């Protein structure tokens, strides 16, 4: 067995690293949030709190896995599995390094967008099957938010696709050898960043699970490892969005050759993960209608204009 695209060893390693990173993020996020709130965060378990994730895992595995008697059992159980598999499947098309990846797909970008849409089903099913008013409100909000933000998440990527002339993520990375797409596609990057936060419902846009308004939103009734799967899936989604930004706008594995490509990828992706955590620490949550009007009335026209201008420039320079 060797490290090449699609070999079982590579797939296993990617799975391990992705889930491991997502689990470590529980600790890292709590520490960073602590620092940004002038606290220290959890620093008791292990070296500077590094084993906190083990303690959290033991806690979440030993908790009672309770299914409410009024819930619809089948969809209640299947909902966390859907979001977990959808975000993990998205990593199939991410090019980590020239020879590390799961598949080399011609429709990589489309595949990621499709998987992101599937994630909405999990949230809707979880909220509906719980038969709880907070869960219902949360899934209602989640469905509206994800459906509307997917629209210009896709449109903001089309500029990158048009510049490359391909949906293949490897070709997108290789096309950035002369310059990262952050410069020609800055507006596209900003829109994708915002839409990505909304898509993974992280804090500035965590309206589906707004703790202060509707308990925990769509996973109010979940406990034990089913809640843990929602929780870890959110972190995997965060890693996914960071990886996507790295691949599409920051040149993926490209970088000065004193570090191997995979390290460059990790450095860039980690910087974005840190930025997302910073956004959670700093930016307050907008109101639900503000989120909707911001998306449809501001971001959607902006992404369309961005696509139009990109198209005009590409055509005029040919």
């Amino acid at each position, binding site marked *: 067995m060797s490290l090449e695209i699609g070999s079982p060893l590579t797939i296993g390693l990617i799975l391990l690293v992705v889930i491991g990173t997502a689990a470590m993020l529980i600790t890292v996020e709590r520490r960073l949030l602590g620092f940004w709130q*002038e606290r*220290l965060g959890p620093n008791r378990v292990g070296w500077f709190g590094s084993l906190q994730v083990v303690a959290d895992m033991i806690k979440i595995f030993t908790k009672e896995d309770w299914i409410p008697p009024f819930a619809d059992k089948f969809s209640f159980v299947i909902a966390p599995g859907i979001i977990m598999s959808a975000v993990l499947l998205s990593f199939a098309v991410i090019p980590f390094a020239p020879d590390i990846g799961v598949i080399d797909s011609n429709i990589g970008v489309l595949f990621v967008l499709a998987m992101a849409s599937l994630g909405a089903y999990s949230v809707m099913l979880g909220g509906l099957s719980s038969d709880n008013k907070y869960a219902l409100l949360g899934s209602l909000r989640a469905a509206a938010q994800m459906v509307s933000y997917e629209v210009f998440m896709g449109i903001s990527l089309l500029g990158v696709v048009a510049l490359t002339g391909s949906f293949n993520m490897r070709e997108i990375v290789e096309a950035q050898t002369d310059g990262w797409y952050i410069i020609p596609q800055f507006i596209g990057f900003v829109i994708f960043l915002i839409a990505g936060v909304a898509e993974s419902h992280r804090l500035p846009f965590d309206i589906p699970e707004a703790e202060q308004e509707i308990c925990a939103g769509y996973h109010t009734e979940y406990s034990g490892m089913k809640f843990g799967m929602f929780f870890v899936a959110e972190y995997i989604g965060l890693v996914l969005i960071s990886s996507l930004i790295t691949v599409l706008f920051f040149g993926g594995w490209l970088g000065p050759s004193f570090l191997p490509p995979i390290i460059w990828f990790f450095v860039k992706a980690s910087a974005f993960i840190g930025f997302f955590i*910073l*956004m959670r620490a*700093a930016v307050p949550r907008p109101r639900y209608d503000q989120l909707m009007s911001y998306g449809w009335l501001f971001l959607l026209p902006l992404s369309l204009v961005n696509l139009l201008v990109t198209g005009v420039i590409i055509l005029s320079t040919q």
Partner: protein
Amino acid sequence: MIKLIVDTLLSQIRTLWLVFIKLFQKKDTVEYPDQQPYMFPRWRGRIILSRDPDGEERCVACNLCAVACPVDCIALQKGEMEDGRWYPEFFRINFSRCIMCGFCEEACPTNAIQLTPDFEMAEYVRQDMVWEKEDLLIEGTGKYHDYNFYRVAGKKIEGKDKGEALNEAPPVDVRSLLP
């Protein structure tokens, strides 16, 4: 419209920056068990019963502390020694009810009951929060070193008759007409 968008954007970036530099600033957390806080001498913490300079119990079982206590966490029973001194047969404080208000200390006429700066009184068993007299009584005088109630009070005990206390006038003969 453009100005609004630019202002909002700059405001958000400023917010992010101001929060980001907190990473390098001093944290407010006091890591308590490793880093003990300074306890002020007049802090109202664990309650003790003190002794007078001669080593006798100061408490005279007057029940004023139990009356003053707003949560009724003090219980005691009066006893009397052969020499005429009063003392508590038992003195019980339920620290799971005590709110450390210090009213008992203010009510005490003999400075017997006092609050100390100690606050680490957590227990695993609820019944262990009830402290008896032997737990409360200390071997020292607490905050007031020279005070001895029976030396200044008019109460007659063995070896000290009426009018023999410190600064006490001789007893007045109420049946006499002379001043």
